[in-house]
């Protein structure tokens, strides 16, 4: 069983220690919910997991091997949905999603189904600038389904979603986990996820503030 692990992770943002000594282990099919007040480092941890941010100390390990050994393989097995939807205003919904699929080296075959599953099939030809905030978020989430990836990193995925879409997101996450996929999500509001584990960032921040970096 390949575990996705974080070992003794420290994160420094702008000369401030955000969290220290953070560890986690995520088996296939597992879900990790990140909780904590604003500024406790939920987004930073997700960016560290994605490889966008280098941890100040510690290591990310996938199946016993550090992800820094082969960052391209790590990028190929993850999806990251951040605060920004990354929707191009002049491209249509389909064009946006097809380009994202190609960016991951995949074909655009999965695009129509992904749009349908997030209820965007009626909007396929609509330009990105005409979408509402919730529709943009759904388009960003449709990336998860357009191309397969083992690890989903979701930063506040429920923001702007209506109740039905939130339910849909919960169903897709459950389905992804049933297939052996992993999910890490940060959240303030309740997400319809049966979490196998909850990571409270505040626990690691408390230790961090005791010993300033500089």
């Amino acid at each position: 069983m390949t575990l996705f692990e974080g070992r003794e992770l420290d994160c420094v943002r702008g000369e401030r220690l955000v969290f220290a000594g953070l560890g986690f282990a995520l088996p296939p099919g597992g879900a990790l919910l990140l909780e904590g007040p604003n500024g406790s480092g939920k987004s930073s941890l997700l960016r560290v997991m994605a490889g966008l941010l280098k941890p100040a100390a510690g290591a990310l390990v996938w199946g016993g091997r550090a992800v820094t050994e082969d960052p391209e393989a790590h990028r190929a097995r993850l999806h990251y949905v951040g605060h920004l939807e990354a929707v191009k205003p002049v491209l249509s919904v389909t064009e946006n999603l097809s380009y994202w699929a190609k960016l991951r080296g995949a074909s655009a075959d999965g695009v129509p189904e992904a749009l349908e599953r997030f209820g965007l099939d009626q909007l396929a030809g609509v330009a990105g600038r005409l979408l509402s905030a919730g529709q943009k978020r759904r388009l960003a989430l449709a990336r998860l389904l357009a191309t397969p990836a083992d690890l989903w990193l979701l930063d506040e995925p429920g923001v702007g979603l209506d109740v039905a879409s939130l339910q849909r997101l919960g169903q897709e996450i459950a389905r992804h986990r049933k297939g052996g996929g992993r999910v890490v999500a940060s959240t303030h509001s309740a997400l319809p996820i049966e979490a196998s584990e909850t990571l409270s960032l505040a626990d690691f921040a408390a230790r961090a503030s005791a010993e300033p970096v500089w």
Partner: protein
Amino acid sequence: MTAFYGILARDLRLALRQWMDAGLVILFFLVCAALFPFAVGPEPNLLARIAPGIIAVSALLAVLLSLERLFLADYEDGNLELIALSPAPLELVVLAKVVAHWSTTGLPLLLATPLIALLYNMPADGLPVLLVVMALGTPTLSLIGAIGAALTLGARRGGVLIPLLVLPLWISVLIFMVGAIDAELAGLSARPHVLFLGAFLLAALPLAPWASAAALRQALE
């Protein structure tokens, strides 16, 4: 390579839908080049003599004008994160963006060049070399410019910083662009100058995407 073509196709499609951006660059090139006679006087011999320099400097400024939007839009709307998370090497994706940038600025500039040469009554024998020089020089400008555009992401006054970073690096390209045409018009061989421009392009082709990608990773941290 799917990622390379995906980015290239997207950027070309974006440029086509927002064709005013590229159009403004060409318009700037023409207006800038047409400005010089007002400053140096309407002496036909003088204007024909300085035409190569005017064309090269105007092209440089026009490319400069277009550099800021190379990465900034993708940086601000979050696409740059997705690009950096693509399994393809970031250097390759940067190269695709630079190719798209050149196709929508350098190539139209190249096509507008004969118009300026005609305007200045530049001797017709110089025109083939002028086009060769522009064809070799403008991709190098785009490549070097990408480094500046990537380095200034996230800076407060990025638009002002880019010229300061990029213009000094462009000087050698400028010298050999103008040198080639001057040599041709003086009856000498333009070959050494053209070879130098080719060498610059070949050196920038691997080095510039590599440096830009490093700067982009830094900007995303």
